């Protein structure tokens, strides 16, 4: 029997926006090595739960624990990697891929200058998503799938034990979704715990060990992932030719997926 605390625990979590309850009564426990997909239609509260467990939204009720420590006291931020929804990658002054990925290392370096080991970790993270050749390019000039990879590389620079991804497949073409699946597959093999929000799983489906389906701010289902045929959650806002359908392709090997031989 393992003495390790769960990677993540949510007990009776509720979040409210301007007095309106967005999620309530959410209980969730994620153990090491699990790959959990939080599914649901728009407005179901899935992204709200993810943002609350990271401390980005205040709790109206309940408690969140990361690695057994209450969120308010949790300090070892290098253990958590976060991949937000794409969109934060472009700002008023364009930055290069390497500059953005390097910010992921700040959780470890703090105010000290970057050392050789830090620079190597950044290069390794870019290599792991196949962007080493674009290191000096502006993120704004990359495709949507490549921008997503930049955010993933940033989250990997500290080798996190828990990786949290918010809609990593949204607006990303099928080839990039397959490549994402390959990267996540490699992380799962290393023992990384993954929790991701998705509208549809596509190529990620074979990796998922458990699915939590949300509706109206509550957990509707918590168990094995649904079969691909039952996975697509119809929503006109997410219907797009670039989205692959409910069927899935298995994750390709990382080098071929990122265009490397």
């Amino acid at each position, binding site marked *: 029997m393992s003495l390790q605390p769960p990677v993540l625990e949510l007990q009776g979590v509720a979040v409210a926006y301007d007095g309106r309850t967005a999620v309530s009564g959410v209980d969730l426990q994620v153990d090491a090595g699990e790959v959990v997909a939080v599914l649901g239609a728009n407005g179901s509260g899935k992204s709200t739960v993810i943002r609350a467990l990271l401390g980005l939204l205040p709790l109206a009720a309940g408690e969140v624990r990361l690695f057994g420590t209450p969120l308010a006291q949790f300090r070892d931020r290098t253990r*958590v990697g*976060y991949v937000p929804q794409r969109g934060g990658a472009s700002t*008023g*002054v364009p930055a290069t891929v390497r500059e953005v990925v390097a*910010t992921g290392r*700040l959780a470890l370096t703090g*105010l000290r200058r970057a050392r050789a080991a830090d620079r190597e970790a950044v290069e390794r993270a870019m290599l792991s998503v196949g962007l080493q050749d674009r290191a000096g390019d502006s993120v704004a000039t990359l495709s949507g*799938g490549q921008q997503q990879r930049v955010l993933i590389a940033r989250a990997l620079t500290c080798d996190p034990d828990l990786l949290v991804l918010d809609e990593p497949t949204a607006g990303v*073409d099928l080839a990039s979704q397959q490549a994402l699946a390959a990267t996540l597959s490699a992380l799962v093999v290393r023992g990384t715990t993954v929790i991701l929000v998705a509208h549809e799983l596509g190529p990620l489906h074979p990796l998922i060990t458990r699915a939590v389906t949300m509706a109206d701010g509550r957990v509707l289902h918590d168990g094995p992932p649904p079969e691909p045929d039952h996975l697509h959650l119809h929503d006109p806002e*997410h219907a797009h030719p670039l989205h692959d359908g409910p069927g899935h392709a298995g994750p390709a090997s990382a080098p071929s997926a990122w265009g490397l031989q």
Partner: protein
Amino acid sequence: MSPLAFDFMQRALLSALLVGLVAPAVGVFLVQRRMALMGDGIGHIALTGVALGFLLGTAPVLTAVVVATIGAVVIELVRQQGRTGGDVALALMFYGGIAGGVLLIGLAPGGTNANLLAYLFGSLTAVSPTDVVVISALSGVLLLTLAVVGRQLFAVCHDEEYAKVAGLPVRFLNILLAVMAAVTVTVAMRVVGLLLVSALMVVPVATAQQLVRGFRATVVVALGTGVLASVAGVLGSYYADTAPGALIVVVALGGFGVATLLGTLVRRRRTASEPSPAGDRRPTEAIPR
């Protein structure tokens, strides 16, 4: 006669050099977080501080630093609360700052709006030896602070939510940036003037963006063009007998125009020589609507 033969020009040029370095160095973070007009808002608030100095009979630079800092922190707190739009907060500061300045200078013994002109548009003869010491000291503190927390500020301005998850002291860094912007405005006001200081925080950054890609490269080029515009503007205003602030901004804008032309040419040449890779969608094509 060489302008360097005059003590007041030596002081003005040294101040211009420092202001040319500091203004874009802080301004690049404001541009990055899409708050380019924040320096302008702070400049208006600092005018109230200058007038308060005249009213109280103390050094206007000192009161300007205090009032501008308070105003900048208020703008940042309003932005963090998210209840009022950042642009509305800036508008309130614009109106309140100008109104407060004109009102207070009217109440000051012997004060007239003419007293404010040198602060609004800069003046070659206005930079006293004490000002040079203050400008040098504050510029040194600002550059040192940026050397220590520049990477953290970049992370926060680039993606505030990610910075929070990474455990960075986001609220502190945001307020620190607001305070640095306020100090920069007051440092620059003797040379560039309060109404034009924001241009020196923004235009060199915009110029650099036409020529280079990447944040670090933008900072380096912006600092270079900021120094060039400041020194050229001060020297030009000596010969043209005009307020230095206006000429500094005109030179900076001229540089922006040239950089835009150059950048366009370089990008066209690059596009012509580099075929876009197959299957590589641009972001706008990959994002569903």
